[in-house]
């Protein structure tokens, strides 16, 4: 990375909001970290399969956040959005004018991080912002942190349970050139609440974009949190996203990550289980074609006894696509009676498709039950034959089996309308594949 790009980024960073108090200190510290660490190269063990250095080029722009209208977003709205709170990021900047907050203030707090950092929630920002950094000590995380001045603060207040989802749209506008977007959200879920939050990543136009986002979520005692990430960006989009979930009270979290397209996509998901008897579920589906690479990196950190985590990631890899899975499970010394399960299953369809998988268990407690498994293979030929013997064409037999393979993950989306929405995206894709196959 050349000095001129660093200068350009530095200049941009110094003109962002949030230039006072803790936030300024935080972002400047992060900027220094970025300068020190630089962009991770392939030599970096955690970036073995994902090349990001080529994305940092002089022509990258930061967008103005004003080029997008409500009508541009319409095509990407999630189901029953009229009933939901919709929060919009354009090119990484939170856009209040395009957002619709449909919860009342007693239930939900939504404000720019730069305001929250100086107001009544300042203590919370101090306590929680940047907690993810320790799990990914690399330049790209630091770079997002340096841009936290344009980020968003969301808080679900204590005792509040709602059916109404919270939708977050992260939109990169590639219509006027290569855009670099860095959304950042700090999402607090206070005690005894239930909430569903979905992030939808899309691109406007078919140009090149690079989204580098960090979503930090902290769930307190007795919270029930469902989190769904739908990554459906343009063919020239690159994406590095980190979802960092902390359980600071005994609670239940359910995370589903769906990746459908893009050029190079990296999804980090951290599950930090800080108290006893926590329960978490992590599911992921990658449905890839073309030359798309999707790299799912997950970390489960069991810090206290009796926690239970369950993880299943699946990938269908067509054409020349590449699926990467890297799943770490840490069981710390005090985390006795941990029960952690992890599984990664890949189906290779394309002649040039690849799957790289690296499950990792690091266990320091003795009374634990952990297992992981992974498979790479083709569609079950016996099942294919069975279906064809019953009269199904090869393409429909394949689509049927692939849909069944994906259904394990889709079923994990608890919010019914959203599940149907994602199911439709998946079915369309499989139909498209069939079409291509014929």
């Amino acid at each position, binding site marked *: 990375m050349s000095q001129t790009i660093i200068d350009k980024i530095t200049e941009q960073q110094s003109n962002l909001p949030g230039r006072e108090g803790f936030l300024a200190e935080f972002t400047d510290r992060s900027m220094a970290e970025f300068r020190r660490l630089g962009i991770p190269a392939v030599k970096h063990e955690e970036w073995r399969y994902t090349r990001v250095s080529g994305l940092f080029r002089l022509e990258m722009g930061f967008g103005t956040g004003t080029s997008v209208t409500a009508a541009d977003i319409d095509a990407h709205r999630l189901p029953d959005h009229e009933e939901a709170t919709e929060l919009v990021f354009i090119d990484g900047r939170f856009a209040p004018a395009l957002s619709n907050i449909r919860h009342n203030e007693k239930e939900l707090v939504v404000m720019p991080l730069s305001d929250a950092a100086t107001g009544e929630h300042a203590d919370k920002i101090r306590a929680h912002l940047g907690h993810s950094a320790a799990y990914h000590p690399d330049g790209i995380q630091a770079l997002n942190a340096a841009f936290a001045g344009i980020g968003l603060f969301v808080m679900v207040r204590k005792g509040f349970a709602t059916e109404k989802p919270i939708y977050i749209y992260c939109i990169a506008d590639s219509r006027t050139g290569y855009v670099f977007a860095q959304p950042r959200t700090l999402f607090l879920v206070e005690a005894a609440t239930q909430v569903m939050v979905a992030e939808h990543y899309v691109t406007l136009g078919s140009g090149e974009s690079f989204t580098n986002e960090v979503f930090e979520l902290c769930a307190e005692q007795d919270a029930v949190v469902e989190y769904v990430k739908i990554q459906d960006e343009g063919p020239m989009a690159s994406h590095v996203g980190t979802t960092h979930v902390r359980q600071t009270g005994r609670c239940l979290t359910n995370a589903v990550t769906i990746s459908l397209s893009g050029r190079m996509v990296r999804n980090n998901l951290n599950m930090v289980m800080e108290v006893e008897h926590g329960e978490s579920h992590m599911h992921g589906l990658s449905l890839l074609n073309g030359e798309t690479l999707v790299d799912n990196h997950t970390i489960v950190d069991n810090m206290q006894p009796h926690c239970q985590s369950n993880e299943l990631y699946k990938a269908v890899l067509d054409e020349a696509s590449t699926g990467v899975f890297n799943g770490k499970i840490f069981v710390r*010394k005090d985390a006795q009676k941990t029960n952690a399960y992890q599984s990664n299953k890949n189906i290779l369809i394309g002649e040039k*498709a690849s799957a790289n*998988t690296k499950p*990792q268990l690091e*266990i*320091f407690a*003795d009374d634990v039950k952990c297992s992981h498994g992974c498979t790479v293979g083709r569609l079950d030929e016996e099942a294919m034959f069975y279906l064809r013997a019953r009269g199904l064409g090869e393409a429909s037999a394949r689509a049927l089996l692939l849909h069944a393979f994906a259904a394990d993950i889709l079923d994990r989306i608890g919010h019914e309308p959203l599940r149907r929405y994602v199911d439709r995206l998946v079915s369309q894709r499989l139909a498209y594949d069939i079409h291509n196959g014929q």
Partner: protein
Amino acid sequence: MYEENDDILQQVTTSEYKYGFVTQIESDDAPKGLSEDIVRFISGKKNEPEWLLEWRLKAYRHWLTMEEPTWPNVDYPPINYQDIIYYSAPKQKLAPNSLDEIDPELRRTFEKLGISLQEQKRLTGVAVDAVIDSVSVATTFKDELAKQGIIFCSMSEAVQEHPELIRKYIGSVVPTTDNYFTALNSAVFSDGSFCYIPAGVRCPMELSTYFRINAANTGQFERTLIVAEAGSYVSYLEGCTAPMRDENQLHAAVVEIFAGEKAEVKYSTVQNWYPGDKEGKGGIYNFVTKRGLCQGDHSKISWTQVETGSSITWKYPSVILKGDHSIGEFYSVAVTNNFQQADTGTKMIHLGSHTRSRIVSKGISAGRSNNSYRGLVQVARKADHARNFSQCDSLLLGDKCGAHTFPYIEVKNPTGIVEHEATTSKIGEDQIFYCNQRGVDTESAVALIINGFAKEVMNQLPMEFAVEAQKLLAISLEGSVG
């Protein structure tokens, strides 16, 4: 029950390493340190041809440009490579004419270790090459094997007697530049075993090399080369021990296996280098590169290892599956106790079509030790219908040890099928109580459970050594349950 088991743990962890004695024998040493002169000195001692010296020097020069790897999950103070003696040979008559001429002190040493150098007292069906510090002191059954065209001798002898074979195969499977320790080994290796099985010959007995480090401040850098020509078969075993010393000693070996069409090589290791004392003082650094090449179609290479010794183990016996329909296997039991650290596993590189590999790894950690499995399964673009199955299980005993699993799976061919399963568990109190209730005491119960856990691997060992290895496993661990 906790307290009681802790007592047993105490007893066991204080039990002595059986092979920790030192043989008092005069030795012929090189001066400490490493330089081109030392490389020339070693080569000169061995009366090597010019090309081999050049080969060593090239490796040495390359080594100078390399950095010691830091990626393994092990932790040790920096090694001072100038503080090591790179050549140490017991003083005895050069090249004894018969086994009877071997220094009686050396003979006694090996007898104490349970290795008889007298052919009439041999273990049935096992030929031994005995290596002490930097040199081979005896090889049994050479003549009998030669009748079938099998060459089994020390590396030094092979350089003199069969230079064309050595020149053809040395470094062909593990290039000198492969990694830091292979470059070091290539520059300073002093001896080792060479074994050549001609086409179509089934080796009638187990071949084995017994390695012993004796001298202080020395490193051991041996090289083993096994060539199995088309249609041949050989089963090979290595064993190793070292005296108890407070210092850490470096062992950086290279093993190369070449298998021709339809050839089969089975390589078993019972590694019992001195593991250091219960405070973690002393012990061998075991940094070893082992690799087999399934060059021919339908060839098979199988690694079996029982790793109980060494303070640090860094070792990944691998197979390159180049021939179509070739098979690679890796069976491993790694036990760590006290302050031992092991980072071990395998690489299975599938290049040919219809290649198959199987990995069974069982890690057992006790005390304050750390045990890591690290493995790579790679299916190349052209390796149609490759198949791999891996099973890696960890068993934890006590709450101060760690078990880690780092499998890498890279598949570039859609016809490949790769499956990996791993579990981690502990010996349950309920299991121990159940055994107690049937009259089996805690120590025997642990031995029973451990042997059950490791059975799949132990079954792969040649009969003669399975019993020995099972005992070793029990000694390394018995009672260390908490």
